[in-house]
């Protein structure tokens, strides 16, 4: 059976459609999920998309983190359900404490929107297995609050345990500590990434098709499971 990958739409989500399309492009079965639902249904993995959930009120992701579907997602993620949070989705994962640290306002205060080179630092996660360690990819980035911060001890632990997933190359777009663009949890099933691989799945509409690997990675993981 084709693996089913859900995408949660919150009020203010922007990139849910592109995430669904990327899942379809990769060959999995995209499933639209709604923030107000109490259950995840029968999905094998979940993407939290980019955007401005609840208008970014209070803090980015702070209100989405308490939406009804998150009450189902949080325990499922802790039990091993693969979850990818992109941009606002990364912020939601940090607010839910499924990932350490926080995303704060870009150090230069400007919204950034450009194509960004990243270096893949780990391919042992559910979402990056199709990449080579050290491989550079080009994907869009667009955020106002993408500055990844955490205590020094947390950063050291992330580095030591190989949980820095991707780093910015060719200029840090938002002041993120140690050029961190994405991280994973200890088990490697929960991944947060500030740039947008779902916008780079086809040369026709993106700067590359480099981002598709996140979605083929999860497909291959689920098919072989």
């Amino acid at each position, binding site marked *: 059976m084709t693996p089913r990958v859900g995408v949660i739409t919150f009020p203010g989500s922007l990139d849910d459609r592109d995430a669904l399309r990327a899942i379809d492009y990769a060959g999995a079965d995209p499933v639209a999920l709604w923030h107000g639902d109490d259950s995840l249904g029968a999905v094998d993995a979940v993407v939290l998309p980019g955007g401005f959930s609840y208008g970014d009120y*209070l803090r980015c992701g*702070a209100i989405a983190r*308490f939406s009804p579907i998150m009450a189902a997602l949080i325990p499922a993620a802790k039990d091993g359900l693969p979850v990818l949070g992109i941009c606002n989705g990364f912020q939601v994962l940090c607010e839910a404490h499924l990932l350490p640290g926080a995303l*704060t*306002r870009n*150090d230069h205060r400007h919204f950034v929107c450009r194509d960004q080179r990243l270096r893949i630092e780990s391919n042992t996660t559910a979402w990056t297995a199709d990449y080579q360690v050290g491989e550079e990819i080009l994907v869009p980035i667009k955020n106002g609050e993408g500055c990844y*911060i955490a205590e020094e001890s947390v950063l050291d632990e992330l580095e030591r345990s190989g949980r820095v997933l991707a780093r910015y190359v060719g200029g840090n777009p938002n002041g993120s500590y140690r050029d961190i663009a994405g991280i994973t949890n200890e088990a490697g099933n929960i991944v947060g990434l500030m740039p947008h691989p779902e916008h780079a799945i086809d040369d026709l509409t993106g700067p590359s098709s480099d981002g598709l690997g996140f979605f083929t990675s999860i497909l291959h993981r689920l098919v072989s499971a």
Partner: protein
Amino acid sequence: MSRVVVEVMLKPEILDPQGRAVEGALDRLGLVGVTSVRQGKRFEIELAGPLDASRRERLNELAETLLANPVIENFTVHVVEDA
């Protein structure tokens, strides 16, 4: 009616770009000698009736999880009126 004020500030070690922007504006507008501006949030919460122990407890929990993110922020909960 009871009134509670929750104040939330970024931790001192966390860069506050908004505060920096305000600092720059104050300086530009002729306020001499500004050395630091930090911007925070203040929540004024009104509740019907007195604050019993369970509501106080829930309020403290929500201050710590919803109103503030302890990874980057400090907060205080101050009961202004309890009746």
